């Protein structure tokens, strides 16, 4: 998946699924990307989230990053925001946990309580 032809194909697929579903507000997954987060492995966490969301062809999920939010000791941090539900912040996330967060929380709506830092 790395040529311009792939990109055009991808565009078509995304457009179709957007048109089909008209999802309204998107689910957002936010990864903390301050110096603290980056040093703790936030980029790898983001890569894992992207892989998992792309693999499942979820087009109603936006993946974004944010700077340091002052919880450096808990980095890498991942927020999951599902429209109409309270924000959930996971701490000390690694690539493997990130994949589980996508599978359980983003897809099925089940919060993984033991990793949540804002209980």
């Amino acid at each position: 998946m790395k040529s311009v032809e792939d990109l055009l194909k991808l565009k078509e697929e995304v457009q179709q699924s957007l048109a089909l579903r008209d999802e309204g507000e998107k689910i957002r997954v936010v990864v903390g990307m301050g110096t603290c987060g980056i040093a703790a492995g936030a980029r790898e966490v983001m890569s894992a989230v992207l892989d998992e969301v792309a693999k499942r062809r979820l087009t109603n999920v936006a993946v974004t990053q944010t700077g340091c939010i002052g919880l450096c000791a808990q980095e890498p941090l991942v927020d999951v925001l599902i429209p109409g539900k309270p924000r959930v912040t996971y701490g000390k996330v690694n690539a493997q946990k990130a994949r589980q967060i996508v599978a359980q929380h983003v897809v099925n709506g089940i919060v993984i309580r033991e990793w949540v830092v804002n209980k």
Partner: protein
Amino acid sequence: MEELALHLLDLMENSLAAGACRLELKIREDIAANLMAIELVDDGRGMEEGEIKAALDPFFTTRTSRRVGLGLSLFRATARQCGGDLTLSSRPGAGTRVAVIMELNHVDRPPLGDMGATIAAALARELPLELYYRHERDGKVFEFSSTRLKEILGDIPFNLAPVLTWVRDFVNGGLQKLYGGEDRL
């Protein structure tokens, strides 16, 4: 940080925190001159002379000036350890330029690392970002332009996983060609 790509992500985060909406990253590897030169230019709010000094000093950087942390001084230490240096030039309202040089084959020079993941992470945001990345290695050039990507994608936002994974793979694939396909990561 174990990769140059992680230092660069950190620098780009500084730029974004300083309100930049255009970033230009240029990396040049010159094997004959044994030189690696990195330049990051942003159009953020820029810094005054005093702020530039503080930005490079790990002990004078305080929490109140959130837009720079330990990152710059860490990167400078790495550059100096590798026979080079990191320099900052900036003016209020005129953006910031970070320039790093290092000996290309210095034993302590961190590997380039996963530049694809770094570029994808920088583009993963709500606000639009114009990002141009040029990597030159002994005359061979790889270029990535988010403006071109936007032209192709139209209304589709960058922060969707299929788009960002494509960016990651496109960048890493392009760089691999510069390295003649050898295993680099």
